[in-house]
């Protein structure tokens, strides 16, 4: 059983979506031990003993993850179907590369397909989230 079917059909966690058969679209992106993976490319048993984070677990309580907030603020979603996967990919990307260039962003997000937004506002949102994160880091360091 694929991890994505385990999440959706067994656990009822339907925030992770399916958009293709061939691991192109990235709608099913989740984190496995903190790294973004396409949950249609691994079996559920391969996740045994590992930590899986889905879109449902990204924010804490009512407070949104900065990437969720940025997608809302920049109108980076329309139908919302690709959005969970996009947010999980983008948030993972910023963990790896806190100060990404546009090349980093294009390369890091080419595995997620959006058919509604034309990507313009998605790029704006990810840039914004990176900016917020780096400001927060600066603030944290200033406090120290």
């Amino acid at each position, binding site marked *: *059983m694929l991890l994505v*079917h385990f999440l*959706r*059909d067994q656990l*009822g*966690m*339907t*925030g*992770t*979506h*399916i*958009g*293709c*058969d*061939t691991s*192109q*679209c990235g*709608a099913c992106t989740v984190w496995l031990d903190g790294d973004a993976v396409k949950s249609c490319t691994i079996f559920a048993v391969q996740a045994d003993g590992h930590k899986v984070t*889905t*879109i*449902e677990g*990204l*924010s804490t309580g009512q407070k*949104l993850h900065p990437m*969720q907030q940025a*997608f*809302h*603020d920049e*109108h980076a*979603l*329309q*139908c*919302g*179907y*690709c*959005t*969970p996967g996009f*947010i999980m990919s983008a948030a993972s990307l910023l963990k790896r590369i806190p100060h990404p*260039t*546009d*090349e980093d*962003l*294009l390369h890091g*997000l*080419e*595995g*997620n*397909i*959006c*058919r*509604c*937004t*034309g*990507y*313009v*506002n*998605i*790029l*704006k949102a990810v840039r914004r989230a990176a900016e917020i994160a780096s400001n927060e880091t600066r603030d944290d360091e200033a406090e120290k």
Partner: protein
Amino acid sequence: MTIRLATSETQEAVREAGRASQGPYSGQSVPRVEDSRLIRGQGQYVDDFTTSNVAYAEIVRSPLPHARIRGVDTSAAAALPGVLGVFTGHDIVIELHALLPVIAAGVPNRRQTPPQYPIAIDEAVYEGEPVAVVVADTRYGAADAAELVAVDYEPLPAVHDLDAAIVEGSGVTHADAADNIGWDVALPGEGDVDAAFAGAAVTVTQRIVQQRVCAASIECRSVLADYRDRLTVWNSSQMPHFNRMYVAEGLGLPESKVRFISPDVGGAFGSKMGPYAEDYLIPIASKLVGRPVKWTETRSENLSSTSHGRGQVFDIEAAAAADGTLLAMKIKQLVDIGAYFGRTGANPIVSVQLSGGCYRWPIIEARSIGVLTNKMWTGPYRGAGRPEATHLVERVMDLLAHELHMDPVEIRRRNFITRFPHVNNFGFTYDSGGYHGALDRALDAIDYTGFRQRQADLRARGRFLGIGVGCYVEISGFGPSWQTAADDHEIGLTESAVVRMHPSGAVSVFAGTHSHGQGHATSFAQIAADALGVALADVDVVEGDTSNTPFGHGTYGSRSTPVGGMAVYTACQRIIEKGTAIAAHLLHTSIDDVSFKGGIFTDAATGERRSIKDVTLASYNRGLPDGIEQGMEATAFFDPPNFTWPFGTHICEVEVDTHTGVTKILRYVAVDDCGNIINPMLVEGQIHGGVLQGVAQALLEEVQYSEEDGQRLGGTFLDYLVPTINEMVPTEVYHTVTPTPTNSLGVKGVGEAGTIASSVAVINAICDALEPLGVRHVEMPASPQRLWHLIHDGMPAALR
């Protein structure tokens, strides 16, 4: 590398237009209220729903474009543990009371409409046509069982080439048909077209091909059906009421016993108009196995068995005078219908009816032939007829300009329609426009004059830059019932809303439209909050459930705001009318003395006021004036007097690498006029997405078929090239604002605008770039391979 993304100009355009807003919300980029659930993974798409005891269906589909079905052996599949039923065409047809509908509007003089069952019985006529339905207690079980269904196919020749298909005596799409002609309609022009051509300074002849493309919404289609004393169907659709109407008929049930729910829908772009075969098959399967049944399309199925877009070929002749004045155009259109009419309705003929574009044409003479082929049917895809029309006329303008050695902008200027209302060559009335203004804005934004200088400089250094202009006028706001119902047996495309003020003063808006990315929960709330003078947060918009929304046609054809939004607005006005009567009673004055503004009823004589909240509470109480019933709600159906006619100009700047054939978009300016704007942020989002879909048709996308046997080639996202973020177009969005006189909100609709001029802006730019190399016309998609051949095949070997 930093990609330059333009800052928002739309809000500025709204301000410049200076349109007095009806309240604090309209014209503002109000953040979307629907985002909250979608960014948390709390959206509910059809496949997210489940119900106790749900079973899963898998559909066995024909792998061949045309075949006789000699037999279907279901025994091995049925014997697999967990399998609840395996149904062939013969099993399904017993349950069927009516066939899939053919929407006749706009397709006059139909020669034949092949009867469409939701499943093949003895003959499969397109690749992907359902042949059997397998139901099992798990998803994987159904998939495994489907593999075991053995179908004995006798391959038949497939009809796939349009030119060949219309030749008498050619093979036929349906074995029992005489030919492949679905319709053959003459749209004669007024005047002597031959004389116009004879007197022309220049004429051009061109074939223009609109390749088949897939809408490829990221959510594929899905159906969950629960058949018991009532039938409930969760359906990923743009039009739940419409689907209910036909599926109820198909299953022989009263419409009132059938409930369709289209919850969150993950994109549609015209492809989730229905009903589809599966909308019948899954409810029937649920009936037959006695359990709820869920089916969700795979991407491979989506690319084979969800309607394709475009698929039209035009043979054009056009004539102009020496000063660029347009004289006449002749068009022969071939429409690739596919194996069935699908739900095509009017859209293929719209391509011809709008082929004159933004220009005065003394005469256009056209003939449209609908051709049946052994392929999935074509249906509406974002723009549906307008991108085809715009691509056609804007290519013709460039070709004529080229013959006349005239700047392509100049020939457009000389022929623009400038007086409104304008009746076009096919009897449609353009409501309002300012085509020069949109063009000027776009030329200024992209620095057209400066570009020509840069282009010349770079050409001298062996670089090939080009600029392409696409001006458009489109038909939106579908549509006035007098123009959209073909006869008394069809219903016109009005739209509906119920607005209910609860005793607390909170507002529910129930609309017959459907939002699948458009943001109606926000924009309709803006309209209602402004009209009623309440806080936006107090308004909730409900769509997609036939059990609580009034009959509506759903969302397509950029109709939601100009038609559905007007229904919301009209219902609000009715509430205010009733509220005024109650307020007058409470204020002990006459109705004529009470005015309403910003949520407050005021007695003109005394200045005494009552808020709409107070009046609403009173409306549920005793002591109302005579003749006034309790409650505060209103239903409205809005039947627009005309379509709306958005317009604009898109300009694209490209560079073509002549060594590789790769096209790079350097800049893209979009000037769109969709009338008054309710939410600038949503409008920009629609333009961004629409532009990329049009650009993708120009550069990337095509459903390909084998020239040899008509077999579809490819069929996953590995080979069907939807754009990724690497293909993003950093569109610079501008607006002019010309309200429509057709409705009180002055709104025209914007859902498809981005797609309409974008394919031709790109292709015109590529032709402009390659003009020094003798390239006159480029078909879509302008892939590196195609361009490389155009550039190199005619070139002396030494220069290659």
